[in-house]
């Protein structure tokens, strides 16, 4: 009897263990089948530089919407701080671990094309017969920055120019009329000094300030000054430095004079907060800054004006575009271009939510755009677009940009004579172009 009980107990224990094992195996099998590697989902990796309003828009609206429409696609989105993005992206692409699609500034196109890292746009996937038909769908000239050797490599999610932002309240306090903004750099200098406030020798409000510490901002701010005076960084052949001219010296001097208003005071790496919080009275930025500023300070009383110029000189502004690009080594190029096609048809939402201008033809006719708050500021930027010019193109763009950054900082921050700084720049550019 005891032996029978023991046998039954043993039998029960074995059955219990067997059931637990079976359940465990079923669980593992279920997890395995449920995972995307076994399912039909395709994961598309997507990298961009970090821009807080855009991050929210992508993660809460655009990507979920696309994934709902395309249940077989999963978008893995990464927003990386720009200074890190500049290094992380090319290294990842070079090492074979880059994303399927990514954001790129037009100034980097030549470098990435030279390295074979960009896939040219496939008009067929986007529903166009050929590139010519594709270009007709965009505002004339808006794809030029993302084109090289006649081929388009990216489609723009941002098409920008820089204009002048002024704090209306500061102007009124100083007895100035915000409806009569400064039109020349000399006026910016005079008004900037007037609007600057100091306390015990410390600047507590800058009448005007540049952005320091990020090379691309130096290029975007400095280049129009140089162009307005008829100068350029490289010679027409792109084989040497062309800054050692009166235009180069004068542009650098004016940049330095404007920097001396506050003396690179606030130490912020990105002064988006400074203008929004009233620490800076005037600065130069794009329309995309407006939602960001209003997010920081909804009560900000500001207006926008045309980019200043030099008295009697040609009106030239800067044009730049951020584009969606596809990794030439990606195994999901078609899926990437299809997602980009979806994104390019969201122009009204991009503009209303985050003031990104997508220059698709007819975008301005959308009634939603005309009703949006951003529309009130658009006319100034649209006017500045007409005089816009893209930054220089070179396979060695990054090195040239670094050299120009050092040249500008030597003048603006350390107070070096512009001519002396340009002499060093010539040697640095010669090395960069080797």
């Amino acid at each position, binding site marked *: 009897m005891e032996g029978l009980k023991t046998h039954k107990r043993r039998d029960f224990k074995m059955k219990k263990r067997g059931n637990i094992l079976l359940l465990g195996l079923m669980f593992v099998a279920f997890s395995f089948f449920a995972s995307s590697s076994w399912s039909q989902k395709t994961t598309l990796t997507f990298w961009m530089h970090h821009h807080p309003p855009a991050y929210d828009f992508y993660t809460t609206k655009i990507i979920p919407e696309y994934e709902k429409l395309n249940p077989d696609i999963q978008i893995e989105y990464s927003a990386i701080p720009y200074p890190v993005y500049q290094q992380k992206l090319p290294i990842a692409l070079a090492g074979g671990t880059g994303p399927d699609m990514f954001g790129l500034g037009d100034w980097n196109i030549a470098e990435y094309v030279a390295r074979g890292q960009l896939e040219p746009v496939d008009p067929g996937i986007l529903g166009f017969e050929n590139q010519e038909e594709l270009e007709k769908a965009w505002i004339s000239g808006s794809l030029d920055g993302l084109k090289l050797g006649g081929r388009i490599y990216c489609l723009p999610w941002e098409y920008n120019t820089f204009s002048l932002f002024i704090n209306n309240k500061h102007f009124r306090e100083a007895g100035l009329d915000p409806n009569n903004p400064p039109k020349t750099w000399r006026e910016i200098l005079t008004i900037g000094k007037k609007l600057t406030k100091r306390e015990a020798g410390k600047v507590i409000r800058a009448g005007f300030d540049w952005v320091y510490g990020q090379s691309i901002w130096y290029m975007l701010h400095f280049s129009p000054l140089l162009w307005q005076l008829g100068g350029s960084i490289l010679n027409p052949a792109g084989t040497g430095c062309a800054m050692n001219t009166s235009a180069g010296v004068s542009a650098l001097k004016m940049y330095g004079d404007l920097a001396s208003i506050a003396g690179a005071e606030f130490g912020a790496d990105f002064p988006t907060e400074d203008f929004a919080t009233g620490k800076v009275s005037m600065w130069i930025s794009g329309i995309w800054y407006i939602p960001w500023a209003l997010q920081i300070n909804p009560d900000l009383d500001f207006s926008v004006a045309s980019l200043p110029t030099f008295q009697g000189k040609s009106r030239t502004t800067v044009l730049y575009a951020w584009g969606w690009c596809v990794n030439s080594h990606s195994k999901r190029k078609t899926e990437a271009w299809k997602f980009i096609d979806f994104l390019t048809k969201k122009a009204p939402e991009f503009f209303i939510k985050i003031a990104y201008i997508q220059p698709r033809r007819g975008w301005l006719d959308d009634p939603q755009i005309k009703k949006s708050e951003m529309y009130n500021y658009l006319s100034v930027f649209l006017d500045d677009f007409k005089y816009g010019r893209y930054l220089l193109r070179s396979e060695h763009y990054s090195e040239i940009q670094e050299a120009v950054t050092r040249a500008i900082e030597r003048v603006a921050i350390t107070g070096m004579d512009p001519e002396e700084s340009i002499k060093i720049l010539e040697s640095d550019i010669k*090395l960069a172009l080797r």
Partner: protein
Amino acid sequence: MFYLSLHSWSLLSSPRFIGFENYKFLPQDSVFIKSAKVTFCYLLGMIIFGPLALILGIALNQDFRFKQLYWGIFFAPYVISLVVSSLVWKLIYNPSAGLLTLFTSPLGLHIKWLKDEHYALPAIMVYSLWVYIGYYSTLWLAGLKGIPPECYEAAAIDGAGKWTIFRYITLPLLKPVTLFIIVVSVIGAVQMFVPFFVMTQGGPAGATQTLAYYIYKVAFSFLRMGYACTVSVILFVLVFIFALIQVKFFKES
């Protein structure tokens, strides 16, 4: 590394042999020359701070209340992540609202610290001192503990004063530790990267761009791996020569 320094290589294709071309560019490279000067200044600063760690080590070698607590306080910065502590110090150095302004503003001083080419490097040196003083003082302390007490007793019997004991007994017997600390601090100083990356990104105007930061930039921003290896080789050779000189100096004396 030396092999790659003889090549032009962007990671995207096979390295292309160019001989010593990369080395020929070095004298023309104003950024390399400036970075070398910055590295040398930083190195000098770290060596000069060395005696401070010794003083702390001597202090910690005494018996007093809460000695372990003080030791822990000084050693703690060494175990904190360099990125985290660099970010904190970047805020401390903020000229508008940083902690340091509490002390400088009442004195009428307004220093832009990390944005001023004269102060940026010393500011990072002070940070580095804060990080490493506990570590180096611990090494000194270990050296001090290794000195036989009989030496001090004998000196005391002979009527030697404290300074004489320190000069003729303590310091000579600390030579092995001194050599180790100098070599380790030199290697650590030339390799230092994080605070320069986090706090200043090599600026303003290259005032804090060390060779380590420059190598990083050349390799990963400009994708000139061959040239980055060239600068690395030069850095290695300089550190190696320095270490050899130190060893020879301490051996002879």
